[in-house]
């Protein structure tokens, strides 16, 4: 007979994590623990220049004096930072010229992820930089991009090859002492991506990075730096997965975006870290700091689809420094079972005539807690600033929670700020209506959820939108795949 809400809930609980496999790759891992010596060794391993080592040490010293934040609406056992290994690299670390040289196990991993490099290369026209356990193992399309003067490589490589750019911009948007996790990342980041688009260049393809945590007991601290020089454009995609493990894995990334005058950066994330099992065991702690700065007439657009992680703490933000600059934040956060998400954005209006838009869609199922936390701040000199915020929550069942914490600080009376919020529930009547038209309950839920998320899904690049849509379905479906 038909499905009741009870039965739906039961189905949702049985959903399995699709990417829960472990790749057996010979890797070199540091013993657990963090001290100055470990920071030095990471820097040494990566043959970094002196200034980088010192920058890391400064960050480490700052971190040691800081305390883990507790203001977010999430509850977890704080990780023991001395029980984590801060470096894990696949041992055969060569520069691959062709796919044949890549470890076959690694290739298998990519295949399971559905991002066969080869296919990506040939079909999608996407340049992929893959970060697996902290070290960037393969970069494609580098040559095509190089012709336009675009630099797209691992951050380690950038530190070697383009130290001037890295030194000039790293830590300028997110200072090392910005917050606990950013400081930790600054001290121990092992790899990440770097991207530079020269003046007036429109990047001809979507740049893509795929992160994956593999080794047990390692934290992933990747660092991304994207610089769009004057009048340039880039669309950057980031996807994340992790194998299922019983223990909680830590992920503390930092992403800095710099959009110089008239530049535009579109940054899209599909985050599918392991969320833990249905009893709330395991899963990734995702404590990420993402922030961009917009110079005159520049635009930064964050789009995120967050379906994974046991605990998410993430607020991709925009500093609208230049006049006429624009910041956008489009987010879908889906939580199921025991997942907890506290996510949102900060829009800091400094320049005149700056505009920001926030569209947040939270979907909660199971026993999960989903919070939107956002700050819209208008500084005294920012005349005619505008903001529009819309926060919608969709609930499934009656054991989950949706929360909204909007903070508005306007210190200029020309500011125009609008905030709208709705909360709705997937109703049995909606499901029955779909059923009556021949659509089964799982598909019906997917339909309602996709409809709810449409405004944000539409902001994603085409191929990513399809993947994100599937991910939303998988995250809520009873059966695998």
């Amino acid at each position, binding site marked *: *007979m*038909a*499905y*009741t809400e009870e039965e739906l809930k039961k189905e949702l609980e049985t959903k399995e994590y699709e990417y829960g496999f472990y790749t057996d790759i010979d890797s070199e891992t540091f013993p657990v623990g963090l001290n100055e010596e470990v920071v030095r060794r990471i820097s040494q391993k990566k043959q970094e220049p002196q200034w980088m080592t010192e920058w890391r040490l400064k960050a480490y010293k700052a971190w040691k004096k800081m305390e883990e934040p507790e203001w977010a609406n999430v509850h977890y056992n704080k990780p023991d930072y001395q029980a984590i290994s801060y470096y894990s690299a696949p041992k055969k670390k060569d520069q691959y010229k062709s796919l044949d040289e890549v470890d076959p196990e690694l290739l298998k991993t990519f295949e399971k992820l559905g991002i066969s490099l080869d296919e990506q290369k040939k079909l999608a026209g996407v340049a992929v930089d893959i970060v697996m356990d902290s070290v960037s193992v393969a970069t494609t399309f580098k040559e095509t991009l190089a012709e336009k003067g675009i630099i797209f490589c691992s951050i380690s490589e950038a530190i070697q090859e383009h130290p001037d750019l890295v030194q000039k911009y790293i830590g300028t948007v997110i200072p090392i002492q910005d917050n606990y996790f950013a400081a930790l990342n600054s001290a121990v980041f092992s790899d990440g991506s770097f991207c530079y688009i020269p003046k007036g260049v429109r990047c001809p393809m979507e740049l893509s990075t795929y992160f994956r945590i593999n080794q047990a007991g390692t934290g992933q601290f990747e660092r991304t730096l994207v610089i769009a020089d004057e009048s340039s454009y880039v669309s950057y995609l980031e996807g994340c997965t992790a194998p299922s493990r019983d223990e909680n894995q830590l992920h503390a990334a930092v992403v800095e975006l710099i959009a110089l005058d008239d530049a535009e950066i579109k940054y899209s994330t599909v985050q599918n870290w392991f969320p833990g099992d249905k009893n709330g065991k395991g899963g990734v702690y995702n404590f990420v700091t993402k922030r961009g700065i917009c110079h005159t007439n520049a635009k930064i657009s964050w789009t995120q689809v967050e379906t994974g992680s046991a605990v998410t703490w993430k607020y991709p933000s925009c500093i609208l420094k230049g006049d006429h600059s624009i910041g956008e934040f489009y987010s879908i956060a889906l939580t199921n079972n025991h997942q907890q998400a506290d996510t949102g954005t900060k829009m800091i209006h400094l320049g005149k005539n700056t505009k920001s838009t926030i569209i947040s869609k939270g979907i909660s199922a199971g026993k999960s807690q989903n919070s939107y936390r956002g700050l819209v701040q208008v500084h005294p000199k920012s005349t005619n600033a505008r903001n529009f915020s819309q926060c919608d929550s969709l609930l499934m069942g009656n054991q989950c929670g949706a929360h909204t914490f909007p903070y508005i600080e306007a210190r200029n009376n020309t500011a125009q700020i609008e905030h709208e919020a709705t909360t709705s529930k997937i*109703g*049995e*009547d*909606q499901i*029955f*209506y*779909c*059923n*009556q*038209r*021949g*659509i*089964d*309950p799982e*598909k019906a839920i997917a*339909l*309602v959820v*996709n*409809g*709810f*998320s*449409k*405004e944000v899904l539409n902001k994603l690049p085409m191929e990513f939108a399809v993947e994100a849509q599937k991910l939303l379905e998988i995250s809520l479906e009873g059966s695998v795949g």
Partner: protein
Amino acid sequence: MLTIENLHAQVEGKQILKGIDLDVKAGEVHAIMGPNGSGKSTLSSVIAGHQDYKVNQGTMLLEGEDLADLAPEERAHKGIFLSFQYPVEIPGVSVTNFIKTAINATRKAKGLEDMPANVMLKKIREKSALLEIDSRFLSRSLNEGFSGGEKKRNEIFQLAMLEPKLSILDETDSGLDIDALKIVANGVNKLRSKDNAMIVITHYQRLLEYIVPDFVHVLFDGKIVKSGTKDLAVELEEKGYDWIKEMV
């Protein structure tokens, strides 16, 4: 087509249907009339398989097949369609996307491939013309912000697209002005054929002037207390439901 025998059903422990017998053959249109609370909408929900309604006695057979153990979507796949009295809103899902999903779900259940896009498009154009539906309407979110008339027209549009064997129109006339009623009735009439059947549930005789039934049944207190031809509907309109109450 549909054979109902001694059907008893309850909702939240309250007995609503108390022994319904109904035999609907292919090509026929049956009207079910009755005062408020007589069980008309319960009957349509029970046929469609709504989980809140428990059948505690009797049988329902569709072309000889017992419906008892079939989920609502399985009944839909077998060709049962319910035009809802209060169609639900699904924000962000367009009319087109919804009907496409519904058609392909039914095809999948029958082991067929998805309907090719061009065939789908042609069919959508044809059926929307039949119901005088504007193409802009098709890209709007399902039932969101629709007027009463638009909601009902959308229901009949879905009926036209899905081509069911048995259609149940539950109070399709409620919320319709006379122009909209004519368009909807006209559409329904064009969809009538010797291979399908319809059950029209209504409180008033008005709709039956446009959709002329072969049989009229009067439902009262969970039972069919009187059956006849379309003249019965006229008589009911004149004498009111009190006449039936007295008779029972």
